[in-house]
């Protein structure tokens, strides 16, 4: 993504962001609330177009007015949103295949196929043992980490090359966080890329290869994991986040 700008009416969310994700790379996208992380992620996943700027996917330039969630899926970009990723009252198999259901004639669902594939995804990608959870279980019966797992498993199953995770560990217990980080390592092991968006540095540091720090709609810094320790990364984020707003506005 090159020189991305996004304005909502008079509010400027992004002012000239360059952002690149390489092959088989986990990028930690860090920033305080309101830094522009979510806006950048929504542009990348096709939810809305940038006001200005260019997007390239696998070297191919994207027409921003023609870019949509569906098109992003087709080009191998999948986003996993916390809370928003799954329908709580629906069975797992409906969630996995929503929008891409296997169908027979006249758009009728191939329920057998959907259930058996869901079972395979749960066991193969996610290591669910089958205890207490089946493709017929509703999402509301799963733990927070398991829910993230289902959403990540869905993305992997549909051959996403780039999986975007927005605050995947928010409000999870320590044990559940461990599960989610394992899912992210699995994404990398399968040769895919990941953008991990969060302001919880400890988790992001553990699994990312590179860090991009956003601040007030701009890229404040880019770092390789080898260059700094977790504490240095935290200090840097704190430094940007606590810088007074006025500095940004002065000419």
């Amino acid at each position, binding site marked *: 993504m090159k020189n991305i700008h996004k304005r909502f009416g008079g509010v400027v969310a992004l002012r000239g962001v360059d952002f690149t994700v390489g092959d088989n790379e986990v990028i930690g996208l860090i920033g305080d609330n309101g830094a522009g992380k979510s806006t950048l992620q929504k542009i990348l996943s096709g939810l809305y177009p940038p006001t200005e700027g260019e997007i390239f996917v696998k070297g191919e330039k994207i027409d921003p007015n023609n870019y949509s969630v569906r098109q992003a899926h087709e080009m191998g970009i999948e*986003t996993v949103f916390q809370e*928003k990723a799954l329908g709580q*009252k*629906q069975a797992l198999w*409906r969630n996995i295949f929503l*929008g891409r259901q296997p169908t027979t004639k006249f758009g009728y669902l191939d329920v057998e196929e959907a259930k058996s594939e869901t079972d395979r995804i749960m066991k193969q990608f996610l290591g669910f043992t089958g205890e207490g959870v089946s493709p017929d279980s509703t999402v509301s019966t799963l733990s927070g980490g398991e829910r993230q797992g289902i959403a990540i498993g869905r993305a992997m199953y549909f051959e996403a090359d780039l999986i975007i995770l927005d605050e995947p560990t928010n409000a999870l217990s320590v044990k559940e966080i461990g599960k989610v980080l394992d899912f992210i390592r699995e994404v990398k092991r399968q040769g895919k890329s990941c953008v991990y968006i969060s302001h919880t540095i400890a988790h992001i540091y553990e699994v990312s290869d590179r860090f991009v720090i956003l601040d007030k709609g701009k890229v404040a810094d880019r770092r390789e994991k080898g260059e700094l320790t977790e504490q240095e990364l935290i200090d840097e984020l704190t430094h940007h986040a606590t810088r007074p707003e006025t500095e940004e506005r002065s000419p």
Partner: protein
Amino acid sequence: MNVIERIKTYNTQLGLTFIGLLVLILFMVTAPGTFLRGRIYSSFLSITPFIGIAGLGLTLVLVSGEIDLSFTAVMGFAGYVFAVTMGFTGSIILGILAGLASGAVVGMLNGMLVTLIGIPSIVVTLGMQFLIRGATNIIAAGQATTLTQLAGTPIHSLLVGEIGGVVPAQSIWFLVLAVLVWSLLFRHKFGDHILFSGDNPETAEMMGISVTRTKIIVFMIFGALAAFSGILDSFRLRTWWPTMGQGYLMTTMAAVFIGGTSMFGGEGTVYGTFLGAFIIGSLEAGIVAAGLSGFWTRFIYGILILIAVTIHTLLRRQS
């Protein structure tokens, strides 16, 4: 799935079947003279489909996370469009098609006002209910239309005739539509769109589903179903009345909620609505036959609704 899991999955349905049987047994005990003979059941089967067919549409709308109060007026309006078109063209088929289309158009208007303008559906459809009922009365000048030409036509027997002199054809239509609505909601791609639009519209949009389009289509389906119910009623009575459909609002909603469909969207039961319609439909006639005065009907509706909805809510919380 083992037996216990199966029972858990279907406990709402089992509970409802139990309530239905209980009501029936109660009637059989209190008025055996009436309830051990077949005639009263023919009578149930001839009346309940009008509540039931509208209830199927209401179930879809509730699952999509909305509500529609305008359907009683749509029943009357579509009946009128049917009668006038038929009078004008001389064709029953064209009359039926025009009637169904008029219901779908009102549904589309409802859906567009709800999704595109963003007015809560309870408000939109309340307004639409008055508007459509009022407009129908203005155009018809409050006059009934006799439809005696329907008598003896093959379509009349097909829609509301009595099969073997016992089973009213409209009950078969209700059954067929219930199966169709069930398979649409739970076995068709579009059903997934309805379920997720009602459960979590953001999820649906994230996965590339247009919640706006889904909801408009659902309102249109309900409009067409309400219209069909109105047309059937015109066939049954061989007269169109300006008040047609009035009085169905509360009973239809009662049938759907007794059935176990939630107000909160994202889940619902077609089987429940099917059974709920028969429970509600049997009460009125049943209570009178059991020797109680008509005043009791509403009181017993109330008890039944509150008990059923309490049970459904508790069961849902447990799972």
